[in-house]
Structures are given as C-alpha cells and as structure tokens.
C-alpha cells in the first residue's frame, strides 16, 4: 500500500488530535508503521490546532511534512491554511457545518460533510470529528473500518452511558458518505 500523509485541522476542542490518534492507532493495529504529530498552542479550547498522521509500510522518517496527500479541515482558517498544502490529485474532506466556501483547487478530490448536523442526529454534536474521520476512511479505505471501530471503542471505553455507541454510529454515517463519494 502507498504511504499516506494526512493533516487534520480545526479549532482546539473539536477533537482533531483525537481522530488523528484513533486513525494512527488503527493503522498500527493493521500492522503498519505510523506516526502522529500534534501542533497546538497553549489554549485548551478555541485556538487552532492540527495533527499530522503518516502511515507507511516502511519505517517513517520525518513525522512533520510540508505537503500532504489528504486534509481533513473542520473550520474556515484550516481550509485556507491547508488547501494549498495538499499534493496534486490529493483529497480534502470539508466540514460544511462551519465552512461556507467550496474547495478552490480543481486538482483535488473534495468531499463535503455536514459533520455537526449528522453528529447531532446520532446523539451529540461532539462526535462531528468522528463523522469526519468516517468520511475520510470511507473514501480512502486506508485502514479497515472494523479496525477503526475497534480503536473508537477502546478510546471511549470507560466513558459514561452510550458515548461509545454514539461515536460508532457517527463513524458509520461518515463512512457511508465517504464511500458514496468515492464511487
């Protein structure tokens, strides 16, 4: 399988670092080399943050890259900042709940996801990040969806109530959107 370099970006608190960790952990469980590298400011919430995940079959050199194959962007600042960094023929997954513009580059595959609305329908708007992750995995099939679901379960194990269930449903909704747009 080809190597994958993906940036996930948005506001602090939207759960970008979390979905990056889930994706990398799932890929590791699939037997691949992974690295997850966060970048954030001092704020707990509201600042911008992003992480880069690299998945490869070979040992990974730099965990930080200037150009990426894919981007998941969850706010306006992030699409402005990271659209130009995606390699030609790359992928960009856009959270239309907070981003009101289209992708400007014609050489990218663009997937539009109303992540907050979908997550709300499944039980909580907090799962918008998981919807985005689902859409990305649905398009790329970079890791097996079952492995991601396993990583989601592990992440939310021990949380109160049905949080894990809600997130699994959010992932599957996102996955369906991704899969449809891939076909």
């Amino acid at each position: 399988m080809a190597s994958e370099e993906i940036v996930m970006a948005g506001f602090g608190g939207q759960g970008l670092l979390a979905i990056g960790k889930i994706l990398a952990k799932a890929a590791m469980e699939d037997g691949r080399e992974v690295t997850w590298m966060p970048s954030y400011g001092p704020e707990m919430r509201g600042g911008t943050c992003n992480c880069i995940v690299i998945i490869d079959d070979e040992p990974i050199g730099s965990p930080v890259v200037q150009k990426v194959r894919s981007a998941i962007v969850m706010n306006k600042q992030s699409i402005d900042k990271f659209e130009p960094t995606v390699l030609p023929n790359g992928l960009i997954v856009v959270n239309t709940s907070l981003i009101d513009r289209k992708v400007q580059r014609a050489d990218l595959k663009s997937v539009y996801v109303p992540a907050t609305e979908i997550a709300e329908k499944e039980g909580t708007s907090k799962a918008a990040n998981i919807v985005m992750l689902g859409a990305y995995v649905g398009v790329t099939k970079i890791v097996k969806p079952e492995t991601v679901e396993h990583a989601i379960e592990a992440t939310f194990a021990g949380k109160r109530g049905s949080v894990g269930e809600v997130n699994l449903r959010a992932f599957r909704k996102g996955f369906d959107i991704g899969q449809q747009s891939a076909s």
Partner: protein
Amino acid sequence: MAADPTGVLTGQHYLDGNHAACEGALAAGCRFASGYPITPSTEIVERIAARLPRMGGMFIQMEDEIAASITLQGAVWGGKKALTVTSGPGFSLMMEHIGLAAMTECPCVFIDVQRGGPSTGLPTLPGQGDMMQARWGSHGDYEIIALCPESPQECFDTTIEAFNLAEQWRVPVMVMMDECVGHMTERVIIPSADKLSVLDRRWTTKKPGEYRPFDVGADLVPDMAKAGDGHRLFVTGLTHDERGYPVMNHKAQEKLVRRLVDKIRLNADKIAHYEEDQIDGAEVVVISYGITARVAQRGVQIARDKGVKVGTMRLIVVWPFPETRIRELAQKTRAFVVPELNYGQMSLEVERVAAGKVPTVLVPHGGGEVHDPEVIAEAIIKAARSVS
C-alpha cells in the same frame, strides 16, 4: 542484570515520547520521581505520578524546579533510583543542583523536553536550544552525560541507558528530548524484563570501618554505601577529600575536580553512542540529533536523489561529545553539515573537533517548528559543490 518485572510494561504500545520515557525510567528501576509539571514535559509527570505508587515507589510534586532537583538527590542517597522532569525555564532553575549532583557524584537522571526559548519562549513548540546548557549550565568545571532520542521507542531505550550510565559513572545524566519527540506518538515495543539490561548501584563491598566514600579504583568512580548498613558517610558540595570532608585548598581541588572531569573524558569512547549510514565515500556527512535527525533524513534523500554522496551520523549520546569519531570522519569526508533547532550549539563542537580539516556548515533554525527538509538539502548540495 535483568530489570525488575514490576516496572516493565511488556508488550506493543502506542505511546508518545513522554509516556515512553516514563516507562523507560520505570523499567530501569526508577522508584522515586519529583517534579514541577511544565509543558511540554507534563505527560511524563502525569504518568509517573500515577504509576509509581502502584509499585511501591513515590512521586512528590514540589513547589518548584529548584526543590524538585534536590529532592531526587535525597532519594538517591537514601538508596533509590530517581528522576526529575522539566522543560526550558525549569531546566534553568535546576542548574544549581545539577552542579551539586556532579560534585557529590549523585547518580540521577534529568529529562529536559526542550521547547523554544529563551525564557518562557514557545511552551508548546520544539527547540534544541538547551544543548550547551546541559553541558555547561552550572558553575564550576565538571562533566555530565547527555542523550538525545529521536522517537518514542528511543525515548524508552535512552531513558534506560541514561539510568545505567548514571549508575556506572555516577554523574547526573540528561535526556535531552524536544517537544516533537515528546508528543509524537508511535509504536513502542517494551521487551520482557529478562531481555532488558539494567545496572544496579555500585554498592561497596567494604566493611563500615574500612569504607571511605570517595575512594576510587581504576575507572575513577567511587562505590556507594547503603544507607542504614553502618557506613560513615559525609556528602558536601564543598571541595572534599576521600572521606568526604571539606578541604579548602588547591591540592584537594586539583585531585577532586580533575577526577570528576577525567572519569568522563578518559572514558568518552566507552560512553559514545551514535548511528551512521553511508559514511564510506561520502562527500558530505550530516551530523544531527533528536527530531532534527528525523527531519534531516528527507533532506539527505533529496540531496542523494540529485547525485550527492551524503553520509549521516546521528548522535544518541551528545555529551561527552564523540571527538574520536568526528576527528576520524574529518579525514574521510569533505564537509560536515549540522542542522539544529538553534543558532549554532553542537555545530560549534563539530567545528572545534574538525579543526579546520574540513568546513562545518550550520543549518540554523530558531525553533517553533522543524526545518524544511529542502533547506537542509540545499545546504548539503551547496557544501558538496563548494568542496568539489
């Protein structure tokens, strides 16, 4: 000897460098830690504070880094292996007690997860600006050992190595991480306890009446006495004789401080630890460490793709500086290129040891992010052209 299985979390894990360093410390037998949490090293303190009490160890959150850096030395003299953890501003506060550890030959480990400085600088972003401070930060003349891991796996491995070196040479050992290495999350394999090599303390075999705390043998390192076994012990930051008693004259100073320096300098080749790749026939050798070594790999590949013969040397033990090997390389290659997240620290050492035989090209970066690999590649290509 093998590690105590109580502290060894055998298996495959998905850990950031900070958590991996914590596990390395526990596997090495660390059972005491003191700290004053500071970004970007907080995860180490969080984890060790939760883990230590469950294995009969102890963590104390102190009022500041000055206190943290002396508390761990108390634990060492009480018989424990001990750790403290900090970042930039906290590392500055620890300098006085790093000198005390060097003077009293207290085997202990300091982890500094480097961030952008000086002062408060960039708390959440990487730097490599504390490299010279690790070597020279306290007053007076002394030697320490410092290591630079490049990945979470190596944070685990080098923290064990740090504890072993501290016990063997009786110096404070620094693990000089950086924010990227501390926060990047990757696969970490922790072997079973019997596969890990862990050094015990150099306990004296002498009887209480015969033992003098600072008598040394051929390797210039004194043995330690177990608290409570009846040995007489006197430990002071003042210049002292073999009994540990203060002696205020130049002869005692020459004997003691010369030995503190020589025990590391004369054994530097034994302590050295580095990795090399494609050195034979290299026009340019890139010397780097920590996160910058990972980033430089891309720059090296770009330069190789353009036909430049590039070798690499990655420093794992940075202090003592591997003079012998770099002197040899200066005879083999035609230029050194040294990228680092500062405006020239380890590059000064490379330049000193190269002694004008070949040029040393610094690729500086103030920190806050890592190098653009293209910039490193350009420096390599330019260096190759200027010497061909």
